[in-house]
């Protein structure tokens, strides 16, 4: 180790003399780089997969056999109604991770380093969100695969199921902007998941995911009807069973668009002004 001094000196010198300055990274290239970062981190911690796989599986099994008989006469009857709905829950629970990941980066000082680099800053958040699409894909594949094994028979066929997955991914992507915003303002990652669960669980249950709204009191039917999660579940159901009318799908897409238009700029603005006030 006595020779390490000259060693470090010479090598660092040689590398410093270059003084080259590459052209600024384009927004697309910066986003792809952040996506790559997410994929690498995922690759190093495959344990995350357990969450993504187990959570949807547990809820699917639990609710199918717990409520199936009571709600629809039998678990397999209920599954035909319930599976497209629980698919919504599977991806929505994953969107919380977006906020937790962003908050962790901020707290650990990783984003401080990013912020001193001359690239298009929203890429740091956008890259995260695009990477999360992978999670949604895994969670959906898992949920639907298990559903098929338990006796779910989609009338819409493969195309219907794929279309439903597409709509749900678009929807989850838009919702993840909400949690990105929460992730930017929250003080610690634990608070992100805490706050998010308070928002998510009432919305999940106050929807048409688990039961048809017809038996609910009328005031609650109104709330269920405007809940964006209901629109997502309706679209998912209609597409998987091949009964989709134009508006069944359209409302889910409109909800996604509205959420994105409101929360994407908000998240980016909060991020840009974080700690610079």
């Amino acid at each position, binding site marked *: *180790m006595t020779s*390490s*001094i000259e*060693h*470090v*000196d010479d*090598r*660092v*010198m*040689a*590398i*410093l*003399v*270059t*003084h*080259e*300055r*590459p*052209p*600024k*990274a384009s927004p697309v*290239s*910066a986003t792809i*780089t952040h996506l*790559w*970062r997410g994929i*690498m*981190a995922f690759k*190093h*911690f495959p344990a995350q997969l357990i969450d993504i796989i187990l959570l949807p599986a547990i809820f699917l099994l639990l609710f199918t056999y717990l409520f199936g008989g009571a709600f629809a006469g039998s678990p397999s009857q209920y599954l035909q109604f319930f599976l497209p709905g629980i698919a919504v829950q599977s991806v929505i629970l994953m969107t919380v991770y977006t906020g937790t990941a962003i908050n962790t*980066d901020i707290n*650990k*000082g*990783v984003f*401080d*380093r*990013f*912020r*001193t*680099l*001359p*690239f298009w800053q929203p890429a740091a958040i956008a890259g995260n969100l695009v990477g999360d699409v992978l999670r949604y894909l895994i969670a959906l594949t898992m949920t639907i695969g298990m559903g098929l094994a338990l006796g779910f028979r989609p009338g819409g066929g493969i195309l219907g199921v794929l279309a439903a997955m597409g709509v749900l991914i678009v929807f989850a992507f838009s919702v993840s902007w909400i949690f990105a915003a929460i992730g930017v303002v929250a003080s610690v990652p634990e608070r992100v998941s805490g706050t998010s669960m308070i928002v998510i669980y009432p919305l999940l249950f106050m929807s048409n995911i688990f039961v048809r709204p017809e038996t609910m009191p009328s005031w609650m039917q109104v709330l269920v009807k405007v809940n964006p999660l209901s629109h997502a579940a309706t679209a998912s159901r209609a597409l998987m069973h091949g009964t989709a009318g134009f508006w069944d799908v359209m409302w889910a897409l409109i909800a996604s668009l509205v959420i994105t238009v409101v929360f994407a700029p908000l998240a980016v603005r909060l991020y840009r002004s974080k*700690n*610079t*006030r």
Partner: protein
Amino acid sequence: MSSPPTLAIETSGLRKLFGQTKAVDGIDLRVPPGIVYSVLGPNGAGKSTLIRMLATLLRPDGGTATVFGHDVVRDSDAVRRRISVTGQYASVDDALTGLENLVLMGRLQGYTWPKARQRAGDLMDAFGLTHAAGRLVSTYSGGMRRRLDIAASIVVSPDLLFLDEPTTGLDPRSRNQVWDIVRALLAGGTTILLTTQYLDEADELADRIAVVDQGTVIAEGTTDELKASVGQVALHVRLRDPGQRDKAEDLLTQELGVPVHLEGDPAEMSARVEDNSRVLQALGALTRASIEPAEFSVTRPSLDEVFLTLTGHKADDQSAGDAGEEAAA
């Protein structure tokens, strides 16, 4: 490359408030390019807040700051193209390997994938991290993390590098490695702004030093100038007979023309002297009065003593307004 007259950093009346706390309270700095400039101060003095403003991470509440002539608020993109920051906490990504961290930095700086990979490999090699290139950063030792962090800061060689307490918490060997890296970067033409609470670090590396306490600069100059400001030399005398100390104190005060400080040990005393030649006269006077020193020493004051003299408290005194730094974190 900028023309020589442009200052690397120039601030005027720079301020930052956190609630009622004046974290930075009117700082004026002029840092010429091509040197190591150290901002020295205890915890909570406002060092990190100052760096965060200069590095475009924090918006000042008052005053102006320019980096190579670019305003840090209005022209932050231009500033970002010239600087790099290494935080107190190594801001590398724990969830990636060391090599992946550097590839990430290279890509975000605009390198192509192959070029970013090559540059990352070169840097890992240069910083003695090749053996750990494929390991997750979470498994790195403190010293390795710090080196990786600095490597990440120079993926594109910056004209100005901010090193915020780069050796805090490091063992002596890792600290020496970081010092070597700083010297190498300087030789490569990078201006370095280094904050530290370690006086020996500033003494070792810095060409100029600003001593910061409670958000203001209380002294500024070269290391020698700062030391001179508290006297050229420190005379330390230990007597054989403690009973003679009062008499010796009178004699020394008279001969040296400065106040004599009585130490905790009843046989010891010390004084700061502007004029070296008076030391010999004073020792001669003691001998003529039959007061025998058991030992005496003449030393240049350490920066520790400089700090104590300037601030009235020691550099590692934690009680001095931690609120500012807390709020900045």
